[in-house]
């Protein structure tokens, strides 16, 4: 028998994040007082009653500073106003058409002129899903992420796409379907606004569950132009300060690393200016 122990292993990321969240929650909770005698009414009636009530302290609000881990984000993403049955239908439908892993959860859902779009995540992938589109109720594709638990800075672009319009007339494949350019991804708890700029046009993204979906809608006859200029995604905090930029040719690309030294980067790969000077990645949810 060898006297050296087995090789070191990483704490599974989901457990790392769960334990971290529990720790930070615990250190913010006041010591739990199980029983507290409560003095009853005193005064004119001259009655003093003693009651015993169990007190369960509620969760304390936690101020999330830029760079801090958003520890109290709900474990399950919530889409306001979405019927649970419909949610299940979307998750199963998108999963079925795209995801080889299963278990995708809906994090963001938008409906605009181009239709309905859902952004889902599995434990390792982003799933972009067109819902009720031409030809099929769910049409999804997935992209594996270098790290789901960590972000390269305050914002991660997990998918950036452009789709030509469906055309018009009898020969059109999807007549009337609008063209679009889209950027989707994840953000840290410090981000309150995301913009997407392409070819001189800028739109605000829809933010939900620490994700964003930004879509620029074009006409049905729009074609992806040759040499489409680089599209840029920007993230701002509550004070309006720019805290993250992705794909801006004027801003050098940076690299980020997890505490274990794993490099986290955007799906959009640009040369990193100084790969030896990575800064700490931001945790996601």
């Amino acid at each position: 028998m060898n006297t050296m122990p087995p090789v070191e292993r990483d704490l599974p990321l989901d457990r790392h994040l769960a334990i971290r969240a529990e720790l930070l929650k615990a250190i913010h909770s006041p010591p739990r007082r199980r029983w507290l005698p409560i003095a009853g009414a005193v005064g004119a009636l001259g009655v003093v009653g003693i009651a015993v009530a169990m007190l369960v302290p509620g969760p304390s609000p936690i101020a999330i500073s830029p760079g801090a881990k958003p520890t109290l984000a709900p474990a399950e993403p919530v889409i306001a106003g979405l019927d649970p049955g419909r949610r299940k239908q979307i998750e199963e439908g998108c999963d079925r058409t795209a995801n080889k892993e299963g278990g995708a959860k809906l994090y963001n859902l938008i409906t605009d002129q181009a239709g309905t779009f859902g952004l889902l995540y599995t434990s390792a992938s982003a799933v972009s899903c067109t819902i009720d589109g031409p030809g099929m109720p769910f049409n999804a594709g997935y992209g594996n992420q270098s790290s789901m638990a960590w972000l390269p800075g305050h914002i991660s672009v997990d998918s950036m796409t452009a789709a030509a319009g469906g055309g018009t007339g009898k020969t059109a494949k999807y007549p009337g379907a609008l063209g679009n350019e889209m950027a989707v991804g994840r953000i840290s708890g410090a981000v309150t606004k995301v913009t997407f700029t392409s070819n001189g046009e800028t739109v605000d993204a829809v933010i939900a569950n620490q994700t964003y979906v930004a879509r620029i809608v074009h006409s049905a006859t729009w074609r992806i132009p040759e040499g489409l200029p680089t599209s840029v995604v920007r993230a701002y905090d509550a004070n309006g300060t720019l805290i993250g930029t992705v794909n801006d040719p004027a801003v050098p690309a940076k690299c980020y690393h997890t505490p274990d030294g794993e490099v986290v980067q955007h799906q959009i790969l640009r040369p990193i200016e100084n790969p030896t000077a990575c800064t700490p990645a931001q945790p996601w949810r």
Partner: protein
Amino acid sequence: MTERVHDPDDRALWSRAASGDESAFGTLFDRHAKAVYNHCFRLTASWAAAEEHLQNTFLMAWRKRDSVVLENASARPWLLTVATNEVRSWRRTLARRVRLFEKLQPEPAVPDHADHVADRVDDQRRMADLLAAVNKLPRNEREALALCVWSGVTYAEAATVLGIAEGSVRARVSKAKSRLTRLVATTQPLTFAEDR
């Protein structure tokens, strides 16, 4: 782009954590969780128990934040010592329960959501065998071995956090190694990590 992310050393982070800065404490956790997790595994031969001790170690660290001043630039040696004490305390509790119930079932292998579940189960078996031998060592030798040989803490760092002379740490590790060599069935050459 206005983003600036600093990378302060542990002493600065600890100082901020002691002032109630949760993000600093979170960063310390991110930085040292893996080392504490593996250290706890080596003391328990159970990945599941290691997770629990990891959490308790950092909770204990938080509770002690006002009374602890880091002597080393790294918090790791101190955290590993806290973890060692946490496991020791758990063992005492476990022993009381064993005496109470007069039996102890071996802990079943806990399925893990991570990849390489089979490898982790195999780790637990190997570590349990090794720990059975290590547990026959005197406690101070056992803990010095785990700290310096298995978890890579230097003799000087261990001396600081254990409050003993560096020479004493060396002596404990040396005795632990030679005793362990005799205890272990040597079907293959013994291997120890390089001294530091």
